[in-house]
């Protein structure tokens, strides 16, 4: 028993010794072959200077997460610019594409739901209500979809350079802002024409909605971008969800329909309303669309009575989600190199 053990150990050591012997031979060959691969450059004359480095010893890897990304705004700007340039390289219509697609979709929804299915009945300024929702859902889907792919798409930078990796999902969000920005402007112009008026409550609802959108989309982008490095299936999953996400928020139909559903299916109602995107859409309609409606009694069934308190809770949940996504991202980050 003990002899066998010793024999095995000896064998192991002999193997190890053989390996080392081979390695030494390889090293000698390599040294000989490469001996002239780099020229010899002597050091310049004169004394060595002492370089005083005014810094502490720190971990060289980026550890600041999303916060660090915002400290490197110049780099963020360059990456967003590059992303945009890449998207429109060799395309004649270029940036126009990001308006043509939403415009067509708007036309189809308006025709199918408004005109054929007549969901616009009892909803004044139906088109404005639809457009408001579409703009912000577009912002969400583009951030989520672009963010999910971002790490994988930028694998050469991720593998070779020291950047806070969160910069890529964040850049995806800014690309999406760049695309939705003009749509929001258009929305404002339309609101002004239709007769929007200022109220503090509306603006408050808007800020709340915006905060939910930003935190929720960022959380989803971070989480899925990390997952997508491990399994590329996730970008397909996201793409699939995006096919029907428009139907799961109250934009083509009004909230009152959903509310009616809640009377017979309370659980379904809660699930539907738990979606932060549905909540954000309602809040945005509260800002942009609701003030343009002259007959305020029509608005009552269009929003849940506890819209704002729901919104605050949703925001809280989204902040927690963002925090958890960042944690998750940081954990998976060290496994990116071998998976890209």
């Amino acid at each position, binding site marked *: 028993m003990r002899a066998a053990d010793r024999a095995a150990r000896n*064998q192991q050591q002999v193997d190890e*010794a053989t390996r*080392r012997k081979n390695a030494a031979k390889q090293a000698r060959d390599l040294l000989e072959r490469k001996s002239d691969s780099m020229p010899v450059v002597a*050091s310049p004359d004169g004394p060595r200077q002492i*370089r005083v480095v005014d810094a502490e010893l720190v971990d*060289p890897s980026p550890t600041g997460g999303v916060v660090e990304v915002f400290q*490197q705004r110049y780099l963020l700007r360059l990456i967003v610019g*590059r992303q945009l340039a890449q998207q429109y390289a060799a395309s004649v219509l270029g940036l126009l594409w990001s308006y043509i697609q939403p415009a067509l979709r708007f036309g189809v929804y308006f025709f199918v739901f408004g005109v054929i299915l007549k969901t616009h009945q009892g909803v004044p300024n139906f088109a404005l209500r639809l457009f408001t929702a579409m703009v912000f859902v577009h912002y969400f889907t583009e951030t989520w979809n672009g963010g999910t792919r971002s790490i994988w798409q930028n694998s050469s*930078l991720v593998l070779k350079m020291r950047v806070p990796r969160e910069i890529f999902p964040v850049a995806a969000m800014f690309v999406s802002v760049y695309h939705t920005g003009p749509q929001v402007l258009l929305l404002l112009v339309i609101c002004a024409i239709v007769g929007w008026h200022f109220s503090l409550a509306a603006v408050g609802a808007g800020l709340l909605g915006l905060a939910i959108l930003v935190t929720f989309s960022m959380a989803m982008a971070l989480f899925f971008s990390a997952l997508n490095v491990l399994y590329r299936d996730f970008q397909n999953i996201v793409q699939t969800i995006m096919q029907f996400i428009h139907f799961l928020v109250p934009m083509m139909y009004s909230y009152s329909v959903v509310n009616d559903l809640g009377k017979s299916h309370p659980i379904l109602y809660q699930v539907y309303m738990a979606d932060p995107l549905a909540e954000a859409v309602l809040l945005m309609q509260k800002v942009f669309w609701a003030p343009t409606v002259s007959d305020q009694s029509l608005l009552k069934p269009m929003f849940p009575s506890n819209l704002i308190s729901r919104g605050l809770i949703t925001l809280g949940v989204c902040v927690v989600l963002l925090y958890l996504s960042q944690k998750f991202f940081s954990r998976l980050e*060290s496994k990116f190199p071998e998976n890209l």
Partner: protein
Amino acid sequence: MVESLVVDHVTKDFTLHYHRTLKQIAVATARGLPLKEQFQAVNDVSFTVEQGESVGLMGLNGSGKSTLLKLINGVMTPDHGTVRTRGRIAGLIATGAGFQPQMTGRDNLFLNGAILGMTETELKNKFDAIVDFADIGKFLDTPVSHYSSGMFARLGFSIAIHVDADIFLADEVLAVGDRPFKKKCLAKMQEIRQQGTTIFYVSHAAASVRAMCDRVLVLEAGRLNFDGPVDDGIRYLQYDDEDGDDPAFEGLMDAELGADI
């Protein structure tokens, strides 16, 4: 002396996934094949470098040199142990490090410089010097996908060397350039060495390492097996375990024979 870099019991594991699709995984599981394997590209490595030291990093291909440099500049994080560095780090670790093929040399210059930590003003001030040194002339506004590997290396090196870093890392990427450019790069590295920058230089060319470095580290299969003066390091690489004159090895052979009998 001031510590520039402290590497403390650092290990980097890589997991190799053999199978990716559901079908492959199912087949492999059914046959009892391993789904993944883990190995240490860098294994329990510790050393300290003072500010201004110039270190040659040697070892066979696959011994973990590039991985160690990536751990030092923060591209990767160790699975065990810690890396601590002082000041700004720049370097060339991979060929065309992070160059975006569709982008022009100019855009890549700005992007790469910004990633290496240069500010907008710094980049604008150094722009001419970088372009001059890289010597890419009229190709500056051409997408880098049209560059030769030499031009790639030149632009990459030129950006990195102009960062004014406290620690400069040069992996084997320089090896692709032409000889006059290599000379120019090494001269520039000698210049920053003179100015007190900490340098890591990976090369198999012993004479070149001897001229550039004060110290040599030798990696073997992820382990740091030698850390000391340059000449000893090169001798270690050349003569370690040479045929016949390693008593330990001889002894083992005898022991094995004995066990067999």
